[in-house]
């Protein structure tokens, strides 16, 4: 038996013993996910237990080094971990922007002290993070952001407004792009971390077309941020932001063998699939979806060994989000009028039409499809003037 086979056996046995049966049920909605944080209400005891057991072993962030709360797994071991989780349909013990976005940025740009402090909090699910990037006047043109941090010696005083801050009203801390030099566009932005309970921070949820409010407007009115809460160098926050956007795009792309991307035709045929033209469209979609799931697997394999093009997450984000939008168009068409019900019990509170509307943001948030195509043109295809 090879080392990896032994590792697989060990993981399999641990999961068998420690993953509660309730945590092997499919995730039905956002409230089945464990987001962690000071304000988080566990849905049941199993969810809490599952988080605690995984956190104790470093399994919430299997590839992070042990001193930072991870299990120090190699790429090959982490792949086995994911496969074994998938095999028993185990839910992720913890989902968070801290794991997907801030963590990787801290691992690359953080000081040792910051890594030990913040990464362990993230790994244990103690602090829930939100991301302060977009502003009302700075969407695709993010680098034009205006939120300003005035230098006051040992701290900055931050004033301004962010928008589309996901779950700002539920988050404990924010990682935030703040202008610290008005004379310099790209090299005048710093990457700051601060507590959402700091005096002067307020949030206001935005009601979306889906009827829910996952995003907020976030206001900063003379918020004091100590100098040691900067990640990376002063005025070099754009480097951190770009690196982190890569991880965000990877996450939104659905890479990582997301089962939701598999054979939608099988889902709809259970509801009765009578239209041959719709069946044909579903079949064409399923070809694209299954091919993309292979792409997701290939991308993750390549990124682990540095074989992926550094701008490849932009391609993944573009293709993955466009695919997901198509998927929901077909789910709506397949559901017919039943997919229009907005709040009935039969429709699970209109879960399908709400999800359909939610997917329209996929190709806008984290960089629009058009911006992704610009980046691919410039950085991968090296087209002129792009």
């Amino acid at each position, binding site marked *: 038996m090879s080392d990896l086979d032994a590792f697989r056996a060990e993981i399999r046995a641990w999961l068998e013993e420690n993953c509660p049966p309730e945590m092997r049920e499919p995730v039905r909605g956002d409230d089945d996910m464990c987001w962690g944080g000071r304000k988080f209400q566990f849905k049941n005891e199993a969810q809490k237990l599952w988080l605690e057991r995984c956190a104790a072993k470093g399994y919430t962030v299997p590839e992070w080094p042990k001193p930072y709360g991870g299990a120090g797994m190699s790429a090959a071991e982490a792949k086995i971990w994911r496969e074994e989780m998938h095999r028993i349909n185990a839910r992720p013990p913890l989902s968070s922007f801290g794991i997907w976005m801030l963590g990787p940025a801290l691992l690359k740009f953080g000081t040792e002290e910051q890594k030990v402090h913040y990464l362990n909090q993230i790994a244990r699910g103690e602090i829930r993070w939100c991301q302060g990037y977009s502003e009302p006047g700075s969407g695709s043109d993010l680098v034009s952001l205006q939120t300003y941090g005035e230098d006051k010696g040992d701290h900055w005083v931050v004033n301004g407004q962010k928008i589309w801050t996901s779950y700002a009203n539920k988050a404990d801390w924010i990682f935030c792009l703040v202008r610290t030099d008005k004379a310099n566009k790209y090299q005048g932005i710093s990457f700051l971390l601060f507590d959402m309970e700091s005096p002067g921070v307020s949030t206001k949820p935005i009601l979306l077309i889906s009827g829910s409010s996952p995003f907020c407007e976030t206001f900063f009115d003379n918020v004091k941020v100590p100098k040691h809460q900067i990640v990376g160098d002063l005025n070099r926050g754009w480097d951190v932001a770009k690196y982190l956007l890569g991880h965000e795009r990877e996450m939104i792309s659905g890479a990582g063998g997301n089962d939701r991307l598999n*054979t939608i*035709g*099988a889902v*709809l*045929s259970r509801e009765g*699939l009578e239209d041959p033209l719709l*069946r*044909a469209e*579903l*079949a*064409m979609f*399923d*070809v*694209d979806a*299954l*091919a*993309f799931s*292979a*792409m997701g*697997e*290939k*991308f993750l*394999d*390549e990124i*682990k*060994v540095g*074989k992926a093009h550094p701008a490849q997450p932009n*391609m993944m984000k*573009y*293709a993955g989000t466009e695919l997901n939008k198509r998927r929901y168009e077909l789910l709506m068409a397949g559901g017919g009028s039943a997919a229009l019900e907005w709040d009935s019990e039969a429709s699970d509170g209109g879960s399908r039409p709400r999800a359909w509307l939610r997917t329209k943001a996929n190709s806008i948030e984290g960089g629009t499809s*058009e911006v*992704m*195509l*610009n980046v*691919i*043109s410039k950085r*991968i*295809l*090296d*087209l*002129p*003037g*792009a």
Partner: protein
Amino acid sequence: MPLYHTEDQAMLADTARQFMAGEGAIAKQLRHWRDTNCKDGFGHALWKQFAELGFTGILVDEADGGLGMGHVEAGIVLEEIGRNLTPSPFLTSSVMAATALGGASAETKGRYLPGLLSGDSVFAVAIDEGAKHRPERIATRAQRAGNGFSISGAKAFVVHGGSADMLVVAARTSGSDEDHDGITLFAVPRDASGLSQDVVRLVDSSMASHVKLDNVAVDADAVIGEVDGGRELLNRMLNAGRVGAAAESVGVAGGAFDMTTAYLKQRKQFGQLIGEFQALQHRAAHLYSEVEIARAAVIKAQQLLDAGSEKADLMVSVAKAKAGKAAGLAVREGVQMHGGIGMTDEYDIGLYMKRDRALAEFMGDLYYHADRVAKMSGY
């Protein structure tokens, strides 16, 4: 297994890339044989070089004198074939026929594999009986006669049929046309009595034939595999051909894409490079994404086939369909973005469009395989 090439596979890819871009280049092979009206559509000297490089033995077991590699390795060669539009019987002989013979008795292997490996015998596969790929229905019949069989029927669009020494013929030894069982594979020599061919040139300058079998007598040892139980071996041969054609399609797509992006960086209109226009940049970027995804689907299918996974059937159809989709887009965008010169015979981009069209049909097109994906997914 990670979805990228191992070091050994990367070395093979380097060899294949250099060889195909050099000896197998469009001007040296495809255009040369087309313009000299070659009846075979490919060069036998080049084919001998394929054998000398060991390419003909990629899918033949080491015990049988081959290299004992897999579909990933065959696909590496095919991708470079596609990129250079190199005409050769590699796909029919070294991929499909070699896969069929892998399921033959030791005696049958001993009879046919040496020639297949040395490149002295070229193999073609005679499966389809109409203009569309429909291997579920096989009407060609083989009846027991004396010590062997007598085969009668018609096979359509047999690629390289006219130049092949041997044809692997799928015939029915029992049951009715649509039955799953009752299929037997035969090795039939081109010059067998009662076998006649009408050779036609296709849009991509490859040669295919309409084969008539009129009481063709073969010995019992012409049987490859089991009598009546050949469907499984036929499917194995089909999977090999499909994933192989998909790999070649990815090469065609890559070749057309590279030509096109190079042109975008060179052609000026309105006082600027046309590659500066966002309308073209976005289409090129979308195309890049489609080709990348197709390549991922193909390597996934190759690995599943090599691992003998039960998921291989599904992924092979996904790969053939997706590669066809991506390559079709690549050649259409390629011709359009080249503008007027894309319509000229002098520029190679049109040759990519023609090859893509022929590959799209070979072993089932996008629609056939998307339908198969749906059926395998239960709808």
